[in-house]
């Protein structure tokens, strides 16, 4: 983890969060809005593995928590779990072109599930069947649609920083 790598993570996470708050959340789409930050976290997980995925997920989630109306730490946990799980797919030797799409779908469903379970444990009145289903049927497919725009971009940025790809852990 060099300073450069940290700066890349911080800059992309802050950009994604700002775009999420000002543009993506306000798109007149039916259902719930896509989650740009989560797609970014999964892209980092796919490019660098579970450690990068969960650390980026935790920090990004913590920032998103601070800007929302629920308890701090909930999105941090959900995104860290999603980043860890999708990061496990990073090592696959033969990568099909469809793999990132599947990973984003898996990560988005994981984050949604983790957030919903936390909500149930905390007795959050916002977590009921209808909004969870609505998010699973709208937000998750939208995230998959964002994949070809975010995943190659992040992979390219990470590769540019990495001098020796074999030394990656």
């Amino acid at each position: 983890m060099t300073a450069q790598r940290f700066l890349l993570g911080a800059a992309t996470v802050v950009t994604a969060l700002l775009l999420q708050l000002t543009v993506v959340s306000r798109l007149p789409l039916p259902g719930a809005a896509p989650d740009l930050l989560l797609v970014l976290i999964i892209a980092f997980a796919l490019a660098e593995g579970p450690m990068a995925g969960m650390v980026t997920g935790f920090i990004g989630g913590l920032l998103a928590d601070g800007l929302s109306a629920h308890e701090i730490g909930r999105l941090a946990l959900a995104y860290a779990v999603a980043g860890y799980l999708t990061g496990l797919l990073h090592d696959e030797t033969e990568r099909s072109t469809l793999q990132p799409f599947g990973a984003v779908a898996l990560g988005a469903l994981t984050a949604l599930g983790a957030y919903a379970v936390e909500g149930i444990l905390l007795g959050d009145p916002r977590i009921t069947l209808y909004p969870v289903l609505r998010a699973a049927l709208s937000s998750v497919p939208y995230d998959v649609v964002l994949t070809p725009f975010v995943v190659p971009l992040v992979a390219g940025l990470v590769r540019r920083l990495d001098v020796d790809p074999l030394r990656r852990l």
Partner: protein
Amino acid sequence: MRGSRRLRLTLVLLLLTAFTLTALDYNTAQNGPLAALRRGIDTVFGPLEGVVGGGASSVGNALSGLPRLGSYQSDNKKLQQENARLNGTIASMAGLQCQVDQLNQLMHFIKFTDYHPVPAHVVAVGPAGAFEWTATIDAGSADGIKAGMSVVTGAGLVGRTNGVTPHTATVLLLADPKFTVGGTLISQASVGFATGNGSKPMTYSLASTRSVVRKGDVLLTTGSDTYAPGVPIGTVTSITPDTNAISRTATIVPFVDVSSLDLVGVITTKTPTAPRVPFRPYGPGPSPTSSPCRAAVPQGPVPAASPTPRVTVAPRPSGSSTPSGSVTPSGSATPGGPVATATRTP
């Protein structure tokens, strides 16, 4: 192997940290141990949101003019340029016209209710989009905004301010399931609470099982320590007939569509400036059934030209109208009736 152990250790550590933070922040509205962290993040991101949000809306305005450029098929270069320029002007004029309309509506609201809202733009919409309904506005404590104030548009209630930083504030929108506001049906002087329901209409639970609720009844805020009274919330669309419940519920469709907000106002004054009218017993006058309240109340957004704008001040006295209904000698009078009369007779 060592790598995967370290990985799992970090995962457990991060999850425990997240859990601890959640536990620390649980059920602490504004003053928990993590309030400073939240305020810090808000203070840093708020101005950035304002910058990006403003840029994004002008990009949107520019983009909305583009399709018209493509359809123009003339080989005259000068005309094309002229056309492009005019289309750009039209696009930005449309944006301006939209703002003028919203300002007009807000101005009308001011005239209509005697409130003087602080105008603000919605610059961002909360991140947990699927479950939470929040928005960030570009006015904060420097403009006199405090937590818990009513946020309105010209059409009615939008929500209440939640977290406030010097130049931005977070608004909990009325669709949020954690949003609850005291509401009074204008024709009933009923007491109850309206609660947000996400993307579905709001639920209004009445304290009394005897009150007669009709479709199309208009719900106003009751007012409290922080809430401004008399702000229109929405209309009744259906009534749940639960026979053995201890309260009745009705479905309320809000006047304001919180999914498309731009210009809003924050009511910073506690009560309207009109002085409280001393109570007078309801004497002979118009029959209580022909109460002017129902007619004077907006059906949808506040009408542009209402003949009797002052009557909507009635909701404020309507706080005192609950007693007036029971004190009135004429007994079964609809409490809405005497209120309007009381305000009229000085």
